[in-house]
């Protein structure tokens, strides 16, 4: 089939060439300033629950309510190396509740009972008040409400509990729903290697 090359074809090809060149230029520009993989992470220094100075306010639970997946992709993590391992942990116990027979607050703080407490090290049964305790947060139960985070920070605690994102739940939304709601802009996109430290 022999086809004549008409002026129409020429215009067509010229237009196609222009569009392709423009797209190529745009892509080149974006690739030049491209960075590697980025993921969402909670900036503990900005998060209302963990940043210093925010005391006497309710814990912000937007991470729980705003996340698009059913059980929030944000959960509390206890960085054990920074944990004071206190006998009366203000993040484990509701320290405003009545004291029970053991001399400990009778209520727990976590609404989902996600924190477990056990004595560690050389335990002295005579003197339970002087033992160390390990506080472990159950990943599957925690929904990131931030109550324990709020209690653990200075001056009550050492700030070892912070909110972090679990990437097995995070669906990496283009615009994280929590980030649009966060009053402190604490949800930020960081390079993947930074997010894991």
């Amino acid at each position, binding site marked *: 089939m022999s086809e004549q090359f008409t002026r129409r074809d020429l215009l067509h090809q010229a237009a196609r060439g222009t569009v392709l060149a423009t797209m190529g230029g745009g*892509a080149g520009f974006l690739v030049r300033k491209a960075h590697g993989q980025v993921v969402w992470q909670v900036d503990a220094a900005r998060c209302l629950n963990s940043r210093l100075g925010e005391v006497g306010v309710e814990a912000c639970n937007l991470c729980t309510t705003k996340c698009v997946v059913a059980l929030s992709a944000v959960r509390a993590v206890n960085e054990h190396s920074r944990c004071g391992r206190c006998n009366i942990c203000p993040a484990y116990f509701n*320290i405003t509740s009545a004291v029970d027979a053991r001399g400990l607050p009778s209520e727990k703080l976590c609404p989902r009972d996600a924190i477990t407490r056990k004595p560690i090290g050389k335990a002295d049964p005579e003197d339970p008040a002087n033992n160390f305790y390990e506080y472990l947060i159950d990943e599957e139960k925690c929904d990131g409400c931030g109550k324990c985070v709020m209690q653990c920070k200075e001056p009550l605690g050492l700030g070892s509990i912070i909110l972090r994102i679990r990437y097995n739940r995070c669906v990496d939304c283009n615009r994280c729903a929590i980030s649009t709601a966060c009053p402190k802009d604490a949800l930020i996109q960081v390079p993947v290697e930074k997010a894991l430290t």
Partner: protein
Amino acid sequence: MSGADLQVCAGRPGGPPRAGCLPHMAGWATRLAILVMVAWGTMPAQSIPYQRPVDEAPQEKSIGGGYKTPVVQKPLPRNSWLQVLDVAVLAAAMAISSWLVLKRRNRKSVVALAIGSLAYFGFYREGCVCPIGSIQNVAVAMTDPRYSIPMVVTATFFLPLVMAVFFGRAFCGGVCALGAIQELVLLKPVQVPRRLDLALGLLKYVYLGLALFFALKPAAARDFVICRFDPFVGFFRRTGAPHMLLIGGAFLLVGMFVGRPYCRYLCPYGGLLAWCTRLARRGVTITPDKELDCGLCIEACPYGAIEKMRAVRRNCLYCARCYAACPRDGELARAKAQLVKLS
């Protein structure tokens, strides 16, 4: 570190101060603590002024007893090579889509491809990252010097457009998960009156303009409306805001009769693809040399993409229904040829 100054003791008002933690005073402290406890136990709920017992975290050595610090779970994000795989799958699916439609002219395989794409890009990848939403990322990255996007997003945005410049909207046909879910629910297609179709078709450019307007606001006020109001992503993730699931359900319900309402009237990326497709080198053709003028293909096209017995490439969504309905082409014709050969 020999422990006295690091030992934990619950500070209580009236209870022993720090010195109470020293080993030789421990018995005395316990007795006093029990006293306080008993006194408090009889009182109603009341607050304990909390006093932090330690100033620095005790480490494995000072805890003793062979204690090992438990490892904090850190679920990893998706591997980056898997994202490259997404782009490769996207490119391959588009190539297959255009081959099936332009060469094989076979509707059944297009449906199979659509099911596959829906499973992969929709339910496995949960709708992200998609070229439709990437419009916003690309627009912001182009204008905001402090915002940049990974290369896979750039590729996801440009690949279908480049494809459209050569072969038309191959992406819409069997690749786009949003298109595929609507393609599969379209059971009783009705023809939308041409004028209404044209008028509604302009909506997608209004939506594109709005999306760019919100995406290009300063970083604090920025909003990605295309993603926020994606009608089907809730289904892909099997969770979502109730109102969006409702809107998505409404789209699917309407989509049973009106072919692909989101693609034709709202999809901003569809608008870009339509522009690129005007330059396409090849596109769907209606039986170039075996024409019957029967018009069965016009009735078969649910998207109003056949006018005056010619395919309108910019509206063609690569569904291959016209071939399936054609007595001279596609499956029907091939089956007939097979019969002739056998007899």
